């Protein structure tokens, strides 16, 4: 027969100072883990929203990012009429030729200035991005030195408001609109007219990339395969989704460092939990003896103390979740593979919190194992005489 659960719960409540201190120690460990997971998760969800499953991105063979890719106007003419490409409002294929560069936007002081991705694209490029819509102002006009900025940029920089001017390439560009990409990475970009931007960069015939919308997911796959096989075209095609998945790798260093830190902290906390449980066992020697006299088996004593350790650490895990909760939605940014910034927010999901609690219970149980074993092995007579 097992010892009632209420016994463990009451014990934790009676020694509330020790319980709270140990639990808080575990909570901090869990909070660090959750912060890292929420950071990576936030980046991942931003990038996955950015990608449209129907989009196929075309780069030069051997290029991993739009920034180093070169895509020729002549290649675009061939690309546009491939089978499987959807048709836009104007009856033309939904294909966009885009030029990508980087600009520097000065913040209040030198250290807060930021690198942003600038994209020059035709009207079809805007139509293709179904997650993007204008929130203020208007789109840039063809043939004008005008740009629209993503919402994350407008929110972060006073210098990126409608009516102000930003500087890149050979001169100033007027901001005429703000667009939102519903949480996607495009919200961290500056968009202008393809011809204006590419001629400013002297790249009219050699832009960065091509983007097409397929009629359906199957057609998208087929398009990728046929483009990659086309020796004459000499391009590398991939689903936009795969491209953004690749970009998540920029969070890899932070993720792995964070995990190492969390694991080291967890080892420290499990020693602390062990300490607390040893003290709990020592103080209750006579109680343990009594329980044995009452007929509870060694096994039930062992599981009871293990349960108590797990309970203690689960409490710590929940506290850790509470500590990490305020992080949810906090905006931050990270350098991406094109060395410009992608803004995103910490994303604390129930799934991550569950991971945190499980992590806590595991470290607590490891810490509770030896004390619980000691408790179960006590001789009844000596236990009764102790304390």
């Amino acid at each position, binding site marked *: 027969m097992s010892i009632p659960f209420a016994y463990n719960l009451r014990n934790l409540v009676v020694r509330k*100072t*020790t319980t709270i*201190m*140990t639990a*808080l*120690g575990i909570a*901090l*460990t869990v*909070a*660090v883990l959750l*912060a890292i997971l929420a950071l990576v998760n936030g980046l991942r969800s931003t990038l996955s929203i950015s990608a449209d499953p129907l989009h196929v991105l075309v780069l*030069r063979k*051997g*290029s*991993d990012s739009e*920034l*180093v890719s*070169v895509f020729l106007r002549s290649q675009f003419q061939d690309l546009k009429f491939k089978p499987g490409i959807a048709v836009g409002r104007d009856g033309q294929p939904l294909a966009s030729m885009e030029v990508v*560069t*980087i*600009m*520097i936007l000065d913040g209040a002081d030198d250290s807060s200035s930021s*690198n942003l991705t600038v994209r020059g694209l035709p009207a079809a490029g805007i139509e293709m991005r179904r997650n993007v819509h204008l929130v203020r102002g208007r789109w840039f006009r063809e043939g004008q030195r005008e740009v629209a900025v993503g919402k994350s940029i407008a929110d972060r920089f006073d210098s990126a408001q409608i009516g102000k001017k930003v500087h*890149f*390439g*050979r001169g100033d560009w007027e901001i005429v609109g703000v667009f939102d990409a519903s949480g996607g990475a495009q919200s961290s970009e500056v968009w202008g007219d393809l011809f204006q931007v590419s001629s400013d960069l002297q790249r009219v015939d050699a832009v960065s990339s091509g983007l097409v919308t397929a009629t359906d997911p199957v057609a998208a796959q087929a398009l990728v395969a046929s483009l990659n096989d086309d020796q004459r075209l000499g391009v590398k095609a991939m689903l936009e989704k795969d491209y953004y998945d690749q970009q998540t790798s*920029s969070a890899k*260093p*932070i993720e792995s460092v964070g995990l190492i*830190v969390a694991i*080291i*902290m967890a*080892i*420290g*906390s499990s*020693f*602390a939990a*062990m*300490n*607390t449980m*040893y*003290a709990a066992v020592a103080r209750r020697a006579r109680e343990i003896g009594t329980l044995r006299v009452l007929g509870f088996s060694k096994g039930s004593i062992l599981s009871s103390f293990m349960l108590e350790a797990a309970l203690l650490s689960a409490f710590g895990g929940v506290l850790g979740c509470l500590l990490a909760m305020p992080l949810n939605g906090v905006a*931050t940014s*990270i*350098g991406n593979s*094109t*060395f*410009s910034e992608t803004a995103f927010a910490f994303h604390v999901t129930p799934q991550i919190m569950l991971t945190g609690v499980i992590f806590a219970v595991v470290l607590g149980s490891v810490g509770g194992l030896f004390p619980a074993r000691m408790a179960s092995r006590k001789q009844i007579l000596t236990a009764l005489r102790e304390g």
Partner: protein
Amino acid sequence: MFRYLPLVLKNSWRNKRRTVLTVVSIGISMCLLGVMIAMFHAFYLSNPSPEQALRLVTRNRVSFTVFIPLSYRDQIEHVPGVRAVTVANWFGGVYKDDRDPKNNFARYAVEPEKLFRIFAEYRMPEDQQKAFQRDRTACVVGRDLANQFHFQVGDRINVTGSIFPGDYEFTIRGIFDSPRNTEIMYFNTEYMEQSLPEARRGNVIMYYILIDDPSHSARIAKAIDAIFANSTAQTKTETAHAFGVAFLALLGNIKMFLIGISAAVMFTVLLVSANTMAMSARERVREVGILKTLGFTPGSILGMILGEATAISIAGGTIGYLISTLLLRLVVKSPFGGYMPPMPIFQVPVALACIFTAAAIGVMSSLVPAMGASRIPIVDALRSTD
């Protein structure tokens, strides 16, 4: 005060298991803090190494992903105080399969005759340096890289360009040593230039510059940027140290990361230590009563308990610091170590900061139980049953 030292030490050893567990727990947490402190010190507080202090980096003001013209080199060379300038093009490219991160080691196109002058800390035999300069398709690799791939002088390496297109075959003509991580390969920029199509030549990602005196670095950097201030490709010149820190900052907000984790670690240590001291003080209430009857003043009892906590946490802090030097060695030797400012393994300020933090945490953690014990009336203390 030190009169009570033997008693303090004896007391802290009375419950051996608890003390050991506490010391280990504090030690493991403090080893993280030790690494954080060492990194913070290297990034934001320390002076760059003498070789590094003499190096400047010039790149496009917008980003190092935007080129600057090759023609800038001559103009930079004429700035007073500049001793040598080399092109340093981050080559990127694909070696074997780029999905294996091991294959993504750093590759730079440089001017062979200047590389070893500007990177004075690199050591390579004279004949290998000569061979590197003579053979246009030569490359040199760092010792760490050579060990990882079992490269030997004479081996050939094939790399496909990404930023600079083309298929390249290099012959290893030398292996160099450096105190820092050297998973790096350098090759002759001439080879690359001549393999590129006409329209793509003359582009530079950055220049490494050797200057005559570290104290002139700010003046020289300003002078260089001033030359190109009105051109289409404005430059940004900074010390190699500042450049390294800026590069790492792209990974995220390093400062916040270091401070956040350090704060969490310190608070955890505080809790662990406070918990232990509370447990041990609770067991000893009656003992305190006896000590008081023997004539120990409240002040000396306060001191004894604070001393015990401090002794335990200093032991934890010292062990933590020692483990942190091992961890730091791993950090320095990791691929990221190459981008970080040099971090000597043993540093007095870091060790002191680590141990002092531990001691301060010890005092803070035991303040509440110590005050309680020193204030308790003798009669109550003697009456207490644990």
